[in-house]
């Protein structure tokens, strides 16, 4: 038996690292164990091809909680995010739509498609900003446990109730719509132009196995309006040095507070004795012990692989098995010989320095989903591409570029079964490149290197069950007190001394950092460590 820790964190994703940093900052002895040779989990930068540093999976930073940056002094440790100025939509007919941070510029662009929409666009963002206040009340606190009659939980519930009440009836009803309507129906309340609605609606489906017409998808639209209050329409940005930069800043912060971090230290299992977690066994057989074990892995992996069915009571097991992951997206990373230029708006101007959406119409998006519903990847998928080398040239040799493409839909469960994904990997990559080439003539000749990550690959390399990038679907029945399962939503699990701090816990999803932070704070508050 080696030295004893206050807490061992399984998985060095950004949430695990943040959790470690908070605990270490509070003076606890913490060990982080990462399976891979790099830290960051899905928020990782890797040099996949000589001279090219890729944000392999997660590629933009949007909702990272600002107070975490302050509290962990992440700026000092290298956290640097360059805001994205533009959202660009090339269209097959040679036209295009660029939405800018500058409202006047956006108005003029949108007015080419609909004058009404151009005027309503800022109005929409104002209303969403107001609603974002509510969302902030939700994501910056642990979810209330509605089953509990504990005064603390009731107070928490009342706090949330008050946030709702403060919205006033009009916004309350809009909020009901937001939570229950489809992204497209919700946008229909404001806009008429399909060219505008298509790229806006995709915000509602990223990472989910839903279409833009599926009820319940409108809610995620709100995420884009939560970070900002100053009228800038979105708060997305590139992390300097790739998204791994965020994770590395978190890791350096954690280490500066005294946390210990080991890479290439895969955990085989959590040691459970008499219903209590006491330590972990590594793949190499080493056993490490700690007062508390924290899993940064998804709920499925945590309960079923790390703990094992034999330690779970039947109700918990049933709920864990019910937890829906169903990955729906893949990633294609390209190293390019020169700047990819769009037929409809050539040049390397500001329009391609933000995110680029291949989402030419709502019908295109819905048809991409229809195909996926029946177990095929979309042959003409929704693509969200970024060229981070235009804003951060250090990522590639001079003049060379990286194009990072998030691709949806690529369902984990293809007809032939997920394990057959490798057979379709290149066909999937080809579909993505073919789709892009329709907008970027000569793209194929510029490609020096291509990495295709199917949901199967995301599962194999990053340990994301079923390739779900949010560690579980962000559908209403898996949010708040039900994330990951009702009764065990407060970062606790059904096993004593075992906690969870990943995206599979409230508030979940994206490079937000809130799960890791709230887990650590909950533990410290309850004097578990």
């Amino acid at each position, binding site marked *: 038996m080696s030295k004893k820790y206050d807490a061992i964190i399984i998985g060095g994703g950004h949430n695990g690292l943040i959790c470690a940093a908070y605990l270490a900052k509070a003076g606890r002895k913490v060990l982080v164990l990462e399976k891979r040779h790099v830290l960051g989990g899905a928020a990782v930068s890797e040099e996949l091809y000589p001279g090219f540093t890729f944000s392999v999976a997660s590629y933009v930073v949007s909702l990272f909680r600002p107070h975490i940056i302050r509290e962990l002094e992440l700026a000092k440790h290298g956290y640097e995010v360059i805001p994205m100025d533009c959202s660009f939509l090339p269209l097959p007919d040679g036209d295009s739509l660029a939405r800018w941070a500058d409202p006047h510029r956006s108005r003029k662009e949108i007015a080419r498609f609909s004058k009404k929409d151009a005027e309503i666009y800022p109005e929409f963002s104002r209303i969403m900003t107001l609603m974002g206040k509510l969302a902030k009340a939700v994501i910056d606190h642990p979810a209330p446990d509605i089953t509990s009659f504990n005064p603390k939980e009731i107070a928490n519930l009342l706090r949330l109730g008050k946030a709702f009440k403060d919205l006033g009836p009009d916004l309350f009803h809009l909020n009901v719509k937001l939570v*229950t309507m489809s992204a497209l129906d919700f946008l229909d309340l404001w806009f008429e132009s399909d060219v505008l609605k298509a790229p806006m609606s995709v915000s509602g489906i990223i990472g989910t196995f839903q279409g833009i017409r599926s*009820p319940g998808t409108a809610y995620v639209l709100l995420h884009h309006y939560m970070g900002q209050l100053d009228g800038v329409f979105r708060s997305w940005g590139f992390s300097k040095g790739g998204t791994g930069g965020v994770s590395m800043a978190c890791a350096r912060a954690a280490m500066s507070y005294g946390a210990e971090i080991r890479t290439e230290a895969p955990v085989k299992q959590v040691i459970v004795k008499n219903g209590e977690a006491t330590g972990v066994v590594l793949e190499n057989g080493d056993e490490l012990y700690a007062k508390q074990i924290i899993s940064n892995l998804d709920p499925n992996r945590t309960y079923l692989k790390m703990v094992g069915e034999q330690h779970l009571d039947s109700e918990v097991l049933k709920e864990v098995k019910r937890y829906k992951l169903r990955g729906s997206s893949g990633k294609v990373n390209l190293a390019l010989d020169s700047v990819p230029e769009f037929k409809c708006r050539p040049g390397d101007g500001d329009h391609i320095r933000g995110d680029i959406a291949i989402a030419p119409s709502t*019908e295109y998006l819905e048809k991409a989903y229809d195909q996926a519903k029946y177990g095929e990847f979309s042959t003409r998928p929704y693509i969200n591409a970024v060229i981070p080398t235009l804003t951060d040239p250090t990522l590639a040799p001079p003049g060379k570029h990286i194009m990072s493409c998030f691709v949806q839909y690529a369902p984990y469960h293809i007809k032939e079964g997920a394990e057959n994904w490798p057979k379709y990997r290149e066909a999937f990559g080809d579909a993505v490149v073919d789709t892009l080439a329709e907008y970027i003539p000569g793209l194929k000749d510029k490609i020096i290197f291509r990495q295709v990550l199917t949901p199967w690959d995301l599962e194999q390399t990053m340990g994301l069950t079923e390739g779900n990038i949010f560690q579980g679907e962000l559908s209403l029945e898996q949010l708040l007190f039900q994330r990951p399962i009702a009764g065990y939503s407060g970062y606790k699990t059904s096993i004593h001394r075992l906690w969870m701090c990943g995206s599979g816990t409230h508030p979940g999803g994206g490079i937000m950092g809130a799960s890791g932070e709230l887990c650590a704070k909950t533990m410290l508050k309850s004097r578990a460590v």
Partner: protein
Amino acid sequence: MSKTYDILIIGGGHNGLTAAIVLAKKNKRVLVLEKRPVVGGLAAGEEFHPGYFTNGLLHDTSEVNLQVLRKLQLENFGLKWQSAAPTVALLSKQGECVKLSHDAEQTATEIARFSAKDAQAYREYISFLASIRPFIANLLTDFPPDLTAFGRRQLWTLLKKSLALRLLGKKKMLELLKVTPMCVADFLNEKFETGFIKAGIAAPALYGSFTGPWSSYTTLNLLMHECRSASNIVGGPQALINALTKAAENAGVEIRTNNAVQEILLDENHSVNGVRLSTDEVIQAPIVAASCTPQTTFFNLIQPAQLNYTLEHAVQHYRSRGTTAKLHLALNKPVAFNGVGGLEFYRTGNSFDEMERAFDPVKYGAFSEEPVLDIHVPTVSNTGLAPSGHSVLSVLIHFAPINLKGGWNEDSKKRLYDITIKTLEHYSPGISASIAGAELLTPADLEQRYGLTYGHIYHGEHAVDQLITRPFPACANYTTPFKGLYLCGSGSFPGGGITCMPGYLGAQTILKHC
């Protein structure tokens, strides 16, 4: 006009008539104005082919609220009913059939022929429904919680409703909260394994909701249907209308058919004065209750300038995309499906994938290549609807969109007819040869004939945001921004189908105010 009225009711459908009776029994002078030559609206039977009658455009009477029937004492007017939903046969494409009856054990035995696991799952499903039924049924038969303001009174009712939920017990409550946002496919896949049984059980969740089985929140629709589907009117919808008409006349209600309202008259304070008919006749009354669709009420019957922007926007964006067509067939012999005859209700669907594929085209303005059918054979219990030995088929076709690309015309109608017959032929070989007459009503036809906006059979989609504050917050709880104007149709809580609830609760609201 010498005669004066307290209340005018626009539309003589089952909701309009229910409201009229409730009000007349409280000594209000009530006049019902029906545009069509017959009362009954979607519940009215019609002769669609010489000698052949339908028993109502909608044919499911299982959701009728029996308490309301009793309160209206309809048994005194010849109405008979059973307190259990009628047996429904679920059809598979492979020629199989399972009969769902109100006897759970018998049904489980039926299901066991296909899967022992499903039989057990069905028992559990039924007991889950039984445990939540009091809560849900209560929710759907009481006034909806008032969400339009956050005063102490509103919060108190809301608290009471949540407490009722909490009183289900922790496990039941969590389960209910867990499943309601789910899609019906996930919900039933967790329980059952046999495709056509799952699909058949799920089907009612999709009617009138612009969703497929993979769409979130469809479980809520299913639970709502299951929890209130507990009656069977003898003689079907038309019998209900007959009894309602008699009860109304008995209570002193005046009913005028062929009287189309042209405009609801408002004074300078936005209060109701009466109505003007298409004949330019003006009838004055301080209260008007509209059982027509919300869009008809606000966009067709009220001057545009009277609508403030909030209302204008709400009406404009009230979702009621019609996706249902109706086929009436006159057959010269009895009919059976998958070899099973003598039943009144059949459902097709076969599997979630196939149902989803049936829904897909609607999103792009096309109709299903293989529609999901909700079949009723009224002549089984009501032989008088067709010549002796003949039968009538009443088929609700899902899905056919109102906004068909290229528009509804003879060609597209013919195509939909052919597709539907082909689907029927699969389950009932030889049926086409026995067709003596047919009538196909597209959503466009439904709009035309019944004044259903966008041909939506439920006066608006059943969706969460269009349920409690149905049709929209500005007009929730049966009231409108115009003093004296009330809503009492399917566009109000708890929504469409033959339930009599909107009419009943709408009338109660009026009584509270006068």
